[in-house]
């Protein structure tokens, strides 16, 4: 399973230089998290695989637009998010439903929600029930533990909106888990 804390060792400069081995390492690191993120938004295996492949090709093509090597992960997820958005736009679905802003700072970690083994299936089902915008933010928070600023950059939303979406997503998830022991 890919680790979250190995970002510093990623061969991004070598990938910029066009080394296929570096790209292979990068893709190997992100292929599963990226697929999980995309699949959980589109719920279609083939569409998910297509979007991941399109994301990889776009990453190779546009690596010049990456400003900081350390932000490679969020940059890659940003491309995937745009592809998902295009996918939803084709299906005329609205990804960006809005919620009232949440005034308090939101600082808890993605591991704060521990799930018992018997609750796992229920968790996945509950995740599916969340609105797309909340699910997107929650997945980015759980899968890669991206900071709020980077989640905002990936989803092209204000940090306040990210905070409120994450808050409401976690709140509804907790509520649903409490309801279903």
């Amino acid at each position, binding site marked *: 399973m890919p680790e979250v804390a190995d970002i510093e060792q990623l061969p991004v400069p070598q990938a910029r230089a066009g080394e296929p081995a570096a790209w*292979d390492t990068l893709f190997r690191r992100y292929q599963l998290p990226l*697929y*999980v993120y995309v699949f959980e938004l589109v719920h279609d295996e083939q569409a*998910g*695989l297509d979007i991941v492949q399109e994301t990889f090709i776009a990453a190779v093509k546009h690596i010049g637009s990456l400003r900081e090597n350390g932000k490679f992960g969020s940059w890659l997820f940003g491309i995937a998010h745009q592809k998902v958005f295009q996918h939803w*736009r084709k299906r005329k679905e609205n990804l960006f439903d809005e919620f009232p802003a949440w005034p308090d700072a939101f600082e808890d970690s993605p591991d704060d*929600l*521990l799930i018992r083994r018997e609750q796992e299936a229920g968790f996945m089902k509950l995740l599916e029930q969340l609105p797309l915008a909340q699910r997107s933010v929650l997945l980015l928070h759980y*899968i890669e533990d991206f900071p709020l600023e980077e989640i905002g950059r990936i989803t092209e939303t204000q940090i306040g909106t990210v905070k409120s979406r994450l808050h409401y997503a976690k709140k509804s998830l907790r509520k649903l888990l409490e309801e279903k022991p």
Partner: protein
Amino acid sequence: MTTPREILLSRHQAALPKLDTLRAAALTTMSQPVEPWPPAAFWLLAWRELFLPVRFAWSGLAAIWVLLIAVNFFQHKASSQTKSVSAPMGVSFHEQQRMLNELLADRTPINPDADRQKISPPKPHTELTRIEFV
């Protein structure tokens, strides 16, 4: 007890072989030389990517441009009409100026020195008082 990340990643482990295949496919596209696009394909893609997603915005902009061109055209037409109207006005202005010149010419000064006195600059007050004392 597991974290949501562990649950999410473990549930999609089955997709790994397929992901390995598509990763390899993506890497092969790197080594392929990039062929230049035929112009038709380029314009088709530009149409699909640039125009179609925001067609209402482009249509709005086009409508605004048409409106601006129409306004500009009619303003130009109106200004050319006012030019043609102003020609007799110009004639009357010249006529009035000629009459004014004639009137001024008739009013020749009777005493030219009087006028010259008026034009001469005023002298300092101190000098004037000195003259009075003398």
